[in-house]
């Protein structure tokens, strides 16, 4: 594009640049593959003379609670992790969910359970969407290419501070380790920060513990209602080839990129498939899906897990429809093999 400056960068670097562009001031983190480049890039930003700060913590739990401390003081902060570290982060994410704190974390999904492998997977959907001891009142963004990794990371900060639900950028090992072209656009909206505590003019006693069931229930009902209301604004998705197809592929993240490529290959072979790609996994575009699905004969779920996306979508729709799936837990799914299966 004329007049647009592109950079050639690795996903992890791109995510760090996005956090900076979104106005983040402090990063707390613990090294874990495939997210270390985010830490390393941010550490370079946070030199002696910089306004930006970086703390390499003793573990992910501490990183998450450091983020909460900074947020309470009204400063945009974030962390990043993967796999077992993402498990530990559910502790602070749950607190952020309870207290409506704009917690931002960039997750690089890797193969699990346990240490698994360090490369790639789509097995952290359940964890990102519903990992805490609560109702899953989170915003989960799933980028499918490097540019979107940049754009959605910025959006994650904006919407975290705007709606005050913890926000997860659910990337993966391939995206964070891939190098490619990106336009490091400046963030147009910088949602203002608010300090919850530390305002010298007013005293705030913030409770996280409730003596009575009724008291907590009242808070939860209010938060659940607000989440439902705001979901209409937050929800995001992309569709391809809806008009000509009778079968709908549902996929997200890197796999959706492969599906998009397969769609073109299939078209050339005279086969029409549509693609629905949720950009937000939480909240999910359930209303749109319910409206769309009666047009189709079948849904084909394609994912690098044993059905975490499928379960999420099936839980959100009330249309009876035939389904099929391609599942490869912790393995990449290439356009060619999707083409071979569906041609």
């Amino acid at each position: 594009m004329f007049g647009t400056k592109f950079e050639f960068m690795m996903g992890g670097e791109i995510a760090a640049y996005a956090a900076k562009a979104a106005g983040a001031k402090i990063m707390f983190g613990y090294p874990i593959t495939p997210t270390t480049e985010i830490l390393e890039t941010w550490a370079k930003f946070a030199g002696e003379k910089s306004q930006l700060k970086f703390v390499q913590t003793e573990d992910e739990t501490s990183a998450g609670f450091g983020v909460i401390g900074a947020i309470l003081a009204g400063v945009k902060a974030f962390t990043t992790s993967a796999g077992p570290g993402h498990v530990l982060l559910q502790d602070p994410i749950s607190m952020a969910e309870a207290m409506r704190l704009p917690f931002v974390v960039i997750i690089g999904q890797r193969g699990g359970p346990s240490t698994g492998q360090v490369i790639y997977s789509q097995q952290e959907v359940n964890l990102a969407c519903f990992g805490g001891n609560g109702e899953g009142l989170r915003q989960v963004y799933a980028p499918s290419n490097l540019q979107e990794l940049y754009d959605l990371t910025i959006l994650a900060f904006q919407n975290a501070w705007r709606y005050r639900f913890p926000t997860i950028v659910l990337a993966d090992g391939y995206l964070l380790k891939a190098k490619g072209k990106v336009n490091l656009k400046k963030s147009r909206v910088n949602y203002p920060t608010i300090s919850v505590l530390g305002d010298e003019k007013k005293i705030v006693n913030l409770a996280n513990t409730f003596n009575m069931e009724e008291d907590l229930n009242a808070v939860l009902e209010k938060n659940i209602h607000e989440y439902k209301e705001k979901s209409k604004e937050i929800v995001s998705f992309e569709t391809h080839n809806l008009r000509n197809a009778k079968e709908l592929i549902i996929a997200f993240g890197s796999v959706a990129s492969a599906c998009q490529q397969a769609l073109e290959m299939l078209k050339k072979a005279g086969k029409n498939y549509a693609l629905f790609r949720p950009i937000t996994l939480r909240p999910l575009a359930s209303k749109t899906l319910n409206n769309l699905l009666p047009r189709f004969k079948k849904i084909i779920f394609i994912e690098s897990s044993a059905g975490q996306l499928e379960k999420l979508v099936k839980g959100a729709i009330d249309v009876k429809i035939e389904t099929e799936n391609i599942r490869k837990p912790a393995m990449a799914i290439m356009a060619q093999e999707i083409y071979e299966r569906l041609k």
Partner: protein
Amino acid sequence: MSEVLPSFPKCYKEKSWPSLFCPGCGHPIVLKMLGQVIDELAIAHKSLLALDIGCSLLAWDLFDVDTIQTHHGRTVPLAAGFKLAKPNGIIIAYMGDGGAYAIGLQSLLTSAHRDDKITVIVVNNTLYAMTGGQYAPTTLCDERTTTTPEGRNCQTAGIPFPGPETLSAMTTKNAYLARGSVLQPLVLKSYLKKALQHQIENRGFSFVEALSFCPLNWKTDAAGSIKFLEKMQNYFKVGEIKCPKISKS
């Protein structure tokens, strides 16, 4: 009594008192000393009292000071994060011995090691009080708790955890480390004051352990509680463990 203990702190939120602590609990003594210090240093408006889970959390509405309740053992990293974002704020992490020396030990050690300019107060009553008196790292040898029904066997369970002494080995010369007791509230108060002054002057990490009563779980009467605390003091030595020399200006 007023000659021994100063009057109620001005920073108390009066409508929240009397507190929900059990009769005979040591927390109100520690908190009263802390309140007096906050008054004397005039830092109520710029302080954050971050409370760990356990009995500590009951202090959440007792002061006209910003407060937050965290998760068990997570108060120190939250306090460190807040301090980093607001370096001129005064951050007090208030926790029990279980939160500090068991589930939150990794964070406490790291924060002390990093010389975070925060103040950590650990109330040590040798057990997990709110959950019903289970064994903690600080449980005395042979002390019976609900999870050491035959008494702590120090041959197999190690020695009662020496908090400030452990921190002493790994902190810089800038750290302030002390152990007081609710049996000598004014001495405890002097330690709390030094710790907070330490933070106000941005000198380094500051830490005070307060040996405290838990008659409910100890199953002691007033005299028995004092006797138990004296026994604790025989093991956990009261005093300043690390006190940097300050040149008077």
